[in-house]
């Protein structure tokens, strides 16, 4: 029997998020290559100045990752051979609230950036560069909303004081959230250099 024992069970949620990250990376790789091909295909690419609020939004989303890190359970969770997770400490609720707040602030900031462009007369259909700008920011925003749902779920788990499940949920949700931050930094760099 002992020869049959397996490595400690991984949390499927964590695996699921990693797989999801792979899929989302692929999607944005497709959007990016479409942008590059499209820019190279024709000389009609109009450059425009990105709304300055995007710099502020970038700071916000980076800060949200930091606050989410601050919310981590301080004493490390242990996993025994049967796969049971024992955590002494739950994720910290107040830091979670701050992260969620920053998440919404980021989305609000992105909407302000859109409004700024619309005021300048730059809309979705006005040119390929603006099409990609709206598309990429919207797609990132949609995925970020998914991350916010995950954070709400963690809060719900913490409030129900089911520590183990809260720790697992925190692990998966925070992995996704940090990925959203990285994705935004990538997109911001792409947009800043291409548009």
């Amino acid at each position, binding site marked *: 029997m002992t020869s049959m024992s397996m490595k400690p069970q991984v949390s*499927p949620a964590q695996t699921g998020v990693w797989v999801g990250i792979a899929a989302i990376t*692929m999607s944005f790789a497709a959007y990016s290559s*479409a942008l590059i091909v499209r820019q190279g295909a024709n000389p*009609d690419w109009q450059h425009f100045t990105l709304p300055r609020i995007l710099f502020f939004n970038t700071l916000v989303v980076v800060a949200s990752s930091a606050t989410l890190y601050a919310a981590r359970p301080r004493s490390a969770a242990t996993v025994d051979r049967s796969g049971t997770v024992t955590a002494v400490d739950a994720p910290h609720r107040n830091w979670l609230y701050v992260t969620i707040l920053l998440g919404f602030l980021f989305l609000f900031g992105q909407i302000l950036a859109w409004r700024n462009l619309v005021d300048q007369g730059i809309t979705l*259909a006005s040119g*390929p560069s603006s*099409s990609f700008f709206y598309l990429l920011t919207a797609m990132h925003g949609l995925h970020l909303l998914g991350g916010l749902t995950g954070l709400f779920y963690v809060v719900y788990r913490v409030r129900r004081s089911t520590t183990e499940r809260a720790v697992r949920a925190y692990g998966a949700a925070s992995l996704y959230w940090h990925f959203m931050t990285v994705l935004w930094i990538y997109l911001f760099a792409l947009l800043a250099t291409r548009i």
Partner: protein
Amino acid sequence: MSSPVSSHSAGPQGFWRKYVFSLDHKVIGRQYLDLSLVALTTGMILSWLMRMHLGWPTKAIPGLGAIAPEAAGGIITPEYYLSLMTMHGTIMVFFVLTTAPFAGFGNFILPIQIGAEDMAFPRFNMMSFWVTFVAFVILVAAFFVPEGPPLSGWTAYAPLSAVGKDAGPGQGWGQTLWVISIGTFCIAQLLGSLNFIATTLDLRTKGMSLARMPFSTWAWFITSVIGLIAFSVLLPACVLLLLDRVAGTSFFIPAGLVISDRLQPHAGGSPLLWQHLFWFFGHPEVYIAILPGFGIVSHILPAVTRKPLLGPRVFIACMIAIAFLSYTVWGHHMFMSGMNPFSATVFSVPTLIITIPAAITTLLWIGTLYGAKLRFNTAALFCLAFISVFVSGGISGFFLAQPAIDSYLHGTYFVVGHFHFVMGVAAMFGILAGTYFWFPKMFGRMMNERLGKIHFFLTFIGVYCIFMPMHYLGLGGNVRRYSAFTVDYMKGSVPLHRFITVAALFTGAAQLIFFYNLIRSRFRGQIATDNPWEATSLEWTTSSPPPHDNFGGHHPVVYHGPNEYGVAGRNGDYIMQNSPEPDPATPTAAARTPATA
């Protein structure tokens, strides 16, 4: 030898939670299979209508005029023909060939084969089925919109599919619904693939190492990895196409197009961009359709030959190689598309190389037959036919993989014959083999073998009569996607087209035997034992059908690989995966899986 399971042995009792919004992977798997059966019937009827029109273009099809206003008096118009073709392709590729072998059987069988009580994310699983269902409803709704159903083919090449109503019938709401449906389908498949991957990685029972996973589980696992990458590229492509259609963007539409005498208000888009994105998904999609068939055949073949599959590790390595290579070959769909002709030579090489792992798997199956003790049940026959058809379709791929020959054969019936053999019929035979094999496990009753064999032989002969002549037509330069052959040099092809039509109707009629068998066996079939085929994998260790949590409150423990046939086991010439008996002293198969320490 089993570890207890803490939760949900009984399962929900209410009708809605039990049969409709069920979280049970077995119910969801059956829902997928039911949906694909409906889709298959729809797709098949569409192909009959097309075939009847091609054989006898001026003859009215009785009753059709009453259902479809586009075919007044039962005569199919050119645009309605193209719509039938588009819907046939879309329904078959997405809602049959992707849904049935992967999502359907995979859902039902995979968790049981790895000794899990359910998928990793049952709620996602339920969602992915219902999202698929919604996608299907949206697609079928496209039949009933005022501007007519879409007619841009299942490949929906831009700008025809992107510019909207000006481009003719079918380019209004029909095409828009098509894009929405496929985008929705992508989301469902992504959820499904994610679930399959997490389940396979995390929920394997004790002793179920990767090397001990049955071949079908391997195939579903690899397919889900392909699907994850492929559908996450198709989804953005659909989003871009939808925006071009409804939001006035120009991702795929260049400047200066005059359609219906109207200068289009678009500028700077690239039609080839759509083709690249589409085929980056589209070619791996071929393997999404066929790899589960590989797995099913390799899973069934040892049980019906009573000997281990030849080279199990080589087989798995080949599937992984195919999955990897499938992402490097998409350009072979675009040799004539106007992309840089240098890239054609580049894409041609991996396209030809991918035939090597495919050829190896075929030889492994044929080699497995050598020295076998074949049990000729219907599942076995469909496996053997799978090999035959896969060889036929694979070999015609040699022609199309070469740009110089594709220069002549591209866009002809040769291509139609090729892909129907290799991904249509072969995948379908995999599905049918799986159906005859797993039906007892799914419903606790055996299918009727006599009816099964009649169905098999009629279908096997029928598909060759339908698709082999298409290769001849293609060699004669007969162009596909034509609703009639008015071009002078194609007029001579009509008799052969009539032959194909008759063969198609005949083969289609033979499927009624299958439907009858399915329904009759469901209620009247002989009661099945737990392991009617004397097979080794875990699904045969539990009752037929399995209880709600699959193993009745326990997780099985695995001691052997799935390939232990032709050995002196406790119950006969095989050793079940969960049987604690020691490995046979004198291994008959060099490929026997060693025990993991």
